[in-house]
């Protein structure tokens, strides 16, 4: 467990990511959330400043409440449905993305590249991988059809020049290649790590550091990244995690299942 010393208190990298990612949401949005950090972040946002936020789960759930201390092991268990507004077939909740109902897709990531493409399928060539990863799940659908926030640890082996395999498309080859390849909507919007918040240049679609977390330097971010990062003209510094945010995260995940 990495512990960060902040002005106010002490928190883990995962807690930091969850809090920073949650702040990117807006009240009234419809958010398609993965399990783990994304779910924690969305629930946090919902409880702190976005009461009209609606969470969707791949299992087929619209607008549930998560019970503190009973986080679901995946987005396909009954714990995801507690006091939901609606439960429907998985295919139909995914079709909400295609129809255009979803504002933000919110996922974790194993490997990401300069253009925000995600890989969760293969390390090494697909025909003979050195590691067969678990695969796309809904990732490909979510990232193909809406605006994305990805929350992940900032490590050089995860931030690579080019992913071995594009499981979930970001801006593909940059520029307008995403649209040209048949994806006219959505795209990678933000990447939130334990070091910084990244966006993507509006023209080239290269990853760009927008804000550093307290006490982190741009060089530190670059050192943990396997490609050359762009740097926003005005590099912001994020507000450190607040006591109420940390308290809520810890109430939701008292066993530190996802925030250790």
């Amino acid at each position, binding site marked *: 467990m990495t512990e960060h010393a902040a002005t106010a208190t002490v928190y883990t990298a995962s807690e930091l990511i969850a809090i920073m990612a949650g702040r990117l949401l807006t009240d009234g949005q419809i958010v398609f959330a993965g399990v783990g950090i994304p779910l924690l972040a969305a629930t946090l946002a919902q409880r702190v400043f976005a009461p009209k936020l609606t969470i969707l789960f791949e299992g087929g759930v619209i607008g549930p409440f998560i019970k503190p201390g009973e986080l679901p*092991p995946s987005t396909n268990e009954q714990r995801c449905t507690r006091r939901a507004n609606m439960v429907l077939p998985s295919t139909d909740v995914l079709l909400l993305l295609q129809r255009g109902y979803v504002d933000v897709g919110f996922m974790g990531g194993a490997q990401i590249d300069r253009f925000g493409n995600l890989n969760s399928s293969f390390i090494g060539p697909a025909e003979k991988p050195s590691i067969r990863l678990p695969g796309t799940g809904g990732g490909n*659908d979510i990232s193909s059809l809406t605006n994305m926030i990805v929350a992940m640890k900032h490590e050089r082996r995860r931030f690579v020049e080019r992913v071995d395999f594009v499981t979930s498309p970001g801006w593909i080859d940059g520029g307008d290649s995403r649209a040209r390849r048949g994806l006219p909507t959505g795209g990678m919007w933000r990447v939130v790590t334990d070091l910084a918040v990244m966006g993507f240049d509006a023209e080239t679609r290269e990853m760009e550091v927008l804000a550093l977390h307290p006490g982190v330097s741009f060089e530190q971010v670059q050192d943990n990244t396997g490609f050359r990062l762009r740097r926003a003209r005005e590099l912001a510094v994020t507000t450190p995690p607040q006591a109420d945010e940390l308290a809520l995260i810890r109430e939701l995940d008292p066993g530190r299942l996802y925030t250790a």
Partner: protein
Amino acid sequence: MSAETLVKGYDTLRRELAARDRGLREKVMSLDEAARLVSDGDHVAIGGCTLSRTPMAMIWALIRARRTGLTVSRSITSTEGDLIFASGLGKKIVTSWFSQGIVWGISKVMRHHVEKGLAEFDEWSHMAMGLRYRAGGMGIPFMPVRSMVGSDVARIRADEVKPVRCPFTGDEVMALPALNPDVALIHVQRADAYGNAQLDGLQFMDIDIAMAANKVILTTERIVSNDQIRRAPDHTRIPFFTVEAVVEVPYGSVPHECYGQYEPIFAQLDNYAALTSKDPIAGVKTYLDEFVHGPKDWAGYLDMVGLETLLTASRRGRVIFND
């Protein structure tokens, strides 16, 4: 029917259904009898998703019956995928995600089989899996979709996901091939003796799977009267004529959950993960020997899980209706 054909011909689809007795008749039988309805080499679709409503007792019975060479598909593949590969029940799994669950990390059993070329893990997007079943259930050969395009998930199966142009808008979208399994295994909370099934809570892709398959083997927590089904016909989710077998199996999804009935048996899942984390092959063999081949019957397996554990899981499962 070869599992190698990507899309079953329409003539075949119609002929297969026409050959089945689809009249209103009782179909109650045992797990062993139901296992005989599956042939080696069949394409078998599995209902539920990840740790939920997995027809575990039926899969368990098929492994014990030494079925082999199945192609298996499921929305997301969990513990049962490892058992299918390791037991030799199936050598190809078509799915969107494969590992017991995020909290236990990447399945080492899956990795061993796929990385060594011993078995195939055919990856499609989650929605693509759903739409392939849906097209199959609708009796159309393909379904247009706006995802998968642009990704390597589509690129590496260029013969199986093809662009198609909308004749009205000119948009190029992807065509997903219909998937019509030979058999679907589905576990539900309630069904009558004819196979009319009710599903509480999360439904996943089960309705589309039932309609797409040539026949459904239904396991159910309990069998209710046809009268009870007819009292609320808008709660029936799977119609009887899709079904060839109704097997009453309480706790039929253990160690996975059944919505509103019981939560997953986390101790079993942790135990499985621990067994396979050191040596995946020896570990899964130990698990198969002990929990699949060991017990006399499904009740014997449940006995190994333990009464108190089951009661706790049941109490937690019913919590969903407490508010």
